[in-house]
């Protein structure tokens, strides 16, 4: 068993910021995971360059997870390698955790937290705050969770190794996501109303705004092509009117 010091954890945390740097359709973030593991594997295989080469080669295999939770897997794999776990067990562990780390992170971060933080920034700017206030509010709120997830995940992985599943189940991800969804929904209504409002907004524009909001809710992600088509039509109509 090899002790992994705080220096190793710091270097792994910094490297985790680039985990998706070599994203590809063959091994997804496999190379990125191996890149995070280098400081730990250097300690584990100190004085054994051949062992280090083989271990790094093994860890470039297919892997995927939410990028912020990749640190959980990296920490746990580093723990297993430091404890001398056989390569087959490490490979099985990586295959077992990658699905749940992806689902957990996608739901909390991409579906709930990020839209909520974006809507906070948009709402502030639409309510009259300076551009940098909205941008700073979004970046602070979003990254408070983002950076905590990376640091907590790596620490928990290094500490718990194979037992990380129990730690993940007890983490407050579900409750955090539910609260973010409630706040985000209120902020969406707030920002949508302010986006309709402009000096001299006429009653029909309020009605059109309500209809647009309804359409947006119905269309969901398909709102982009619909909005682009409506704007193209408006452009074409404007060009025709300008020429006549």
């Amino acid at each position, binding site marked *: 068993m090899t002790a992994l010091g705080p220096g190793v954890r710091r270097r792994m945390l910094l490297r985790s910021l680039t985990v998706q740097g070599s994203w590809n359709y063959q091994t997804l973030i496999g190379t990125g995971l191996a890149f995070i593991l280098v400081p730990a594997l250097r300690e584990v295989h100190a004085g054994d360059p051949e062992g280090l080469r083989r271990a790094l080669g093994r860890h470039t295999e297919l892997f995927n997870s939410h990028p912020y939770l990749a640190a959980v897997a990296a920490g746990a794999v580093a723990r297993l390698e430091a404890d001398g776990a056989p390569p087959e067990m490490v490979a099985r562990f990586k295959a077992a955790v990658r699905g749940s780390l992806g689902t957990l992170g996608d739901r909390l971060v991409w579906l709930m937290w990020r839209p909520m933080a974006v*809507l906070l920034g948009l709402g502030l700017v639409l309510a009259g705050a300076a551009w*940098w206030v909205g941008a700073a509010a979004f970046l602070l709120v979003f990254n408070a969770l983002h950076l905590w997830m990376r640091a907590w995940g790596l620490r928990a992985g290094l500490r718990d190794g194979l037992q990380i599943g129990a730690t993940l189940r007890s983490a407050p991800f579900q409750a955090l996501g539910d609260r973010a969804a409630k706040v985000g929904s209120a902020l969406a209504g707030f920002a949508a109303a302010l986006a*309709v409002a402009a000096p001299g907004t006429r009653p029909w*524009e309020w009605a059109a705004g309500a209809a647009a909001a309804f359409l947006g809710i119905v269309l969901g992600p398909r709102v982009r092509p619909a909005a682009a088509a409506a704007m193209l039509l408006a452009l074409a109509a404007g060009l025709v009117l300008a020429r006549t």
Partner: protein
Amino acid sequence: MLSPAQTAAAAVLGGLLALDGTSVAQVMVSRPFVAAALGGVVVGHPAQGMAIGIVLEALHLAVLPVGASRYPEGGPAAVAAGAVYAAAQAPPAAASATLLIAVLCALALEWIGGRSVIALRQANARFAGAPPEGLTPGALARRHGTPIALDFARGAVLALLGVIGVGALLSAADLSGFPPVAPGTVVRLAAVAGIASALRLFGRANYPFFLAGGAAGALVAWLR
């Protein structure tokens, strides 16, 4: 039009924000409303950059980078559109038509950006995996670092082409006689629809919160 120095700065910013989108850090300075404001900073008018950024952000809210999904790329496009729109300083009569054209150009650039991300990820496969004898830390760093450098170059080229292309289009477009109100209303309604589309992410159980937020927003709008 942007000066050569401003164009170069926008290209570098586009490259950095392309990295933030996926490859490095992901602290989300690449979100369209932040990126467009930064594009505005390049030409000295961040608030104008933010104005187009709000619309682009609203239409980007429901885009999810989940797994290996394919999605439009917001950062470099927003930098280019934000910088060009802010630099245009269109007169009030043409402002909303200029905004409409800039938003449409940015959406097209986002689509091109998304396609270029797919192409890069396919090309990155040549750096994937390892030979049977394994990898030294240096070799691994090269396999990981080269795609990051390519991603930066991709974003910079995209922002550069965007600044040149959108700038040329706005300079050439004759917007005299364009109806002044309608384009602005259409853009605002598109933003409203985009913002409301986020509710699909949060779930139907949260509709009452949306309505309460809408009432609060209407009250704020009425009070000011």
